[in-house]
């Protein structure tokens, strides 16, 4: 069926998009649908479809027994892995800190030794 340049086929292409709402449809398309029984019928079917899909939202499917247990087990395992990782990263930080302190202490001791040697040498030269 035809009304001006709009055909049922072109309306059919646009109907799924028009069902989204958000702004009024093209006036030419709206005019065609008003005058075309076939397109009106198709529009009604789309409305039925969206209603049926929306009604699925209220239906709840029961998972297989054991699903909840599996979920808890995987969370438990992830929690333990996380705890182990944090312990290891804590130890790593402690090792790195210890090495840094030891290096700093060794450096300071070395500096003291060098300084005292230099002082002794300068005293010897002066005497």
């Amino acid at each position, binding site marked *: 069926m035809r009304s001006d340049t709009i055909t049922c086929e072109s309306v*059919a292409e646009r*109907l*799924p*998009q028009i*069902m*989204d709402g958000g702004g009024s449809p093209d006036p030419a398309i709206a005019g065609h649908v008003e005058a075309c029984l*076939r397109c009106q*019928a*198709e529009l009604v*079917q*789309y409305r*039925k*479809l*969206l209603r*049926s*899909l*929306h*009604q*699925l*939202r209220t*239906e*709840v*499917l*029961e*998972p*297989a027994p054991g*699903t*909840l247990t*599996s*979920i*808890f087990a*995987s*969370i438990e395992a*992830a*929690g333990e892995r*996380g705890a182990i990782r944090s312990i290891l990263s804590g130890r790593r930080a402690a090792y790195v800190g210890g090495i840094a302190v030891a290096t700093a202490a060794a450096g300071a001791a070395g500096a003291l030794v060098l300084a005292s040697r230099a002082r002794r040498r300068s005293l010897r030269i002066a005497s």
Partner: protein
Amino acid sequence: MAPDMAGLVTAAKAGDRQAFEELVRATYTDAYTLAYRLTGNEEDASDVVQEAYLRAFKSLKRFRGDAQFSTWLYRIVANCAATALGKRAKNRHETLDDDAPLADLRPDYDPDARLDASVERERVTEALRELPDGLRQVVVLRDVYDLPHEAIAKELGISEAAAKVRLHRARRRLRERLFPLRGEEAARAV
């Protein structure tokens, strides 16, 4: 009595494992239902829902609470389902370009049963299962769970325009399959 979801989320974020388990108990049938609708089979749905809770557990600290916990979880389920279906698709040839009409393979189909709500739901569920994965995911997230186009696109890793195109194609296929017009019914019977 319905659990205090906001309180449970706060406690779980603070590291209370029991609070997180309560959140799981309160939401897992809904999450499983969504996973089933997205994947179309029980085995994948169970894997997806398990993976989704694991991700939720690991990233709970990043949940800002500006959406409901269930909406946040649905997005994670959608993302996990997209990943699972992507892996599954590697082992199966299926394209979005396949415009072949979906045939009704039930010879004993009774038109009177259309009035029965549970039969109607069964038909819609079956028609959804028959859709290609890419189309099914979008139409379920949009028309069953009311997720915005933007969120759907983000979780499925596609553009918003692509999500809309898939939605419209899915709606068209479902309409033709579930509510055929007179000429379409005759054409399918041939």
